[in-house]
């Protein structure tokens, strides 16, 4: 059974100019011990998906339809109090903006021990020992000496590592990691990824890993979901999506990665921009930019369907083309 099931998740923002649908029937699941990489156009809804799962959508944003289930039980309709308990104990979160997670008034050690003791039966000294170990695990040098330091005494990259330790220390089953390594250079990045991989192996931790760094995805993820304009448009095993993408957007995305081995005059790019939320075209949302667009794409919306090795939301893969 999967650990997390997201089923038809739809998120809307009511505004003066009408309702904006930012997520539109997003569905995927994550198995125990699995890392699901989430990639896609900036503004596609990756962070919103993460926020909806951990119950931290900012008003006026709201879940308009769909379900989120953790180990079979719904978590999208819990009271704020019960959701707070799920967060931390069952689901940990690493946000895109590290500064919002840390409390500037408390030492790093206090934040770690309090988080652990809120969820695990630990004595004070044991919690402190573990806090030091977590800091070492995320690559903070001289952790035992720095445990009583305050967040502002750490550099940006070090603060991000503390946030990662904080998300993991209560031993949740699932971690939502939104760009956890973007602020980190390659050497620390390698260490953080190795830690996440170890926890998936040893403790069956599941991870939803949002990142723009395809190298990180290739190294860390088991499967990838590709998002575009609030929808999942392709999903599959990491090697298949990276090497053999089916959806024309994914093909364009993989083609625009700069290579370390060859230097080209111009990077390949997908021309145009993702549609604004209030101007998503009918049919396939990628149709204004798609090199393979045909009549049906302008009128009917494709859902995920089997496409070569992956699943893709694209009419090119419909075995029974519509008539007329």
């Amino acid at each position: 059974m999967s650990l997390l099931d997201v089923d038809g998740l739809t998120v809307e923002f009511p505004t003066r100019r009408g309702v904006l649908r930012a997520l539109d029937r997003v569905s995927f699941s994550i198995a125990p011990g699995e890392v699901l990489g989430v990639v896609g156009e900036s503004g596609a809804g990756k962070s919103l998906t993460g926020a909806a799962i951990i119950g931290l959508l900012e008003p006026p944003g709201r879940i308009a339809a769909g379900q989120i289930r953790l180990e079979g039980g719904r978590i999208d309709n819990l009271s704020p109090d019960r959701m707070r308990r799920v967060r931390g104990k069952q689901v940990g979160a690493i946000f895109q903006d590290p500064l919002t997670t840390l409390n500037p008034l408390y030492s790093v050690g206090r934040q770690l021990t309090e988080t652990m003791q809120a969820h695990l039966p630990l004595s004070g000294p044991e919690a402190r020992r573990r806090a030091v170990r977590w800091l070492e695990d995320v690559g903070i040098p001289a952790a035992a000496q720095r445990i009583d330091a305050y967040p502002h005494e750490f550099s940006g990259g070090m603060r991000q590592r503390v946030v990662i330790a904080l998300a993991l220390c209560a031993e949740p089953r699932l971690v939502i990691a939104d760009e956890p390594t973007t602020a980190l250079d390659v050497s620390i990045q390698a260490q953080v990824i190795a830690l996440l991989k170890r926890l998936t192996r040893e403790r069956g931790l599941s991870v939803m890993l949002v990142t723009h760094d395809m190298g990180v995805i290739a190294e860390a993820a088991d499967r990838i979901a590709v998002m575009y304009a609030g929808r999942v448009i392709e999903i599959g095993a990491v090697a298949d999506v990276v090497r053999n993408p089916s959806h024309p957007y994914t093909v364009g995305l993989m083609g625009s990665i700069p290579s370390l081995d060859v230097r080209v005059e111009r990077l390949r790019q997908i021309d145009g921009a993702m549609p604004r939320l209030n101007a998503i075209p009918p049919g396939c949302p990628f149709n204004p930019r798609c090199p393979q667009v045909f009549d049906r794409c302008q009128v009917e919306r494709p859902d995920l369907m089997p496409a070569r090795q992956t699943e893709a939301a694209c009419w090119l893969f419909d075995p029974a083309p519509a008539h007329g």
Partner: protein
Amino acid sequence: MAEGRIVLEAIEASRSFDVSRPWLQRMVAREGRRVLRAVDAVSFAVTVGRTLSLVGESGCGKSTVGRLAVGLYEPSGGEIRFEGQSLSTARAQPALRRRMNMIFQDPYASLNPRWRVSDIVAEPIRAFRLLSGRDVQDRVGQLLTQVGLSPRDGEKYPHEFSGGQRQRVSIARALSSEPEFLVCDEPTSALDVSVQAQILNLMRDLQARMQITYLFISHNLAVVRHMSDLLGVMYLGRIVEYGPGESIFAAPRHPYTRLLLDAIPDLGMAGSTRARTPVGGEVPSPINPPSGCTFHPRCPLANARCRAEVPKHTRDGDVLAACHAVEEGRGAG
């Protein structure tokens, strides 16, 4: 590389920060002042229409060099020159100030949350009186379109955008004053690869068309390779390897550059169990840097001389490297 007029030049530029604790606490603990050397005697020169990139681990001083280069920090030693003039004199002239700008690393902190995006982007245009009336709004719409947003996004406030969309707003703002020299501090790390490709292509098109000179900072080495003419590899405030990007990527000389290149994840890893080589050890504290070559605690080639003597830059082909092993010709390859 000697071609072209030099736009920006750093001559042994340094920048220190006083990170002492408050006076009373220092007295109680009987400690002296503590100074952090964020940038230590850095020299480089960028010619017109070219790109110098800086790479190196977090905390090595890249952003500090960027701020020195546009005059947001005064050097505590050495000098920065813009078109041959000392930057402190150049900055006093509004006409020269307009010609340089910076895209900041943190898209969250660098946009005023209470301003509409159109006002944020228009601010340099108004401040330097480049356009007036309706022309301002037209220009703003054009800039937003160039970075892949829509002119109508100008009505919104920063919090209504995703992380990457906010970064595009700050790029549009930096371009709005039509700078000739632009410091780009991690301009695309918040962007997905397709938007990144658009922005990098745009930056290179503008460079070709308007001869813009870039100081480009990124920890994504593939992006750096794509963008740079010149490359500077920084470690603990110093440039340890400097030269044409292509020469350094083809044959890195300095042991640190080699470790950095080995630590990059790549797409070939998809679905495989191969692990990349992490750079061993940690960046030491810049308050108390190691003796001699500051890289020696992590360097596989370190010896007694490295622990005692600071390596000077030596030339190997068109590349400068600060390393005893390179100078002595041992351990290359």
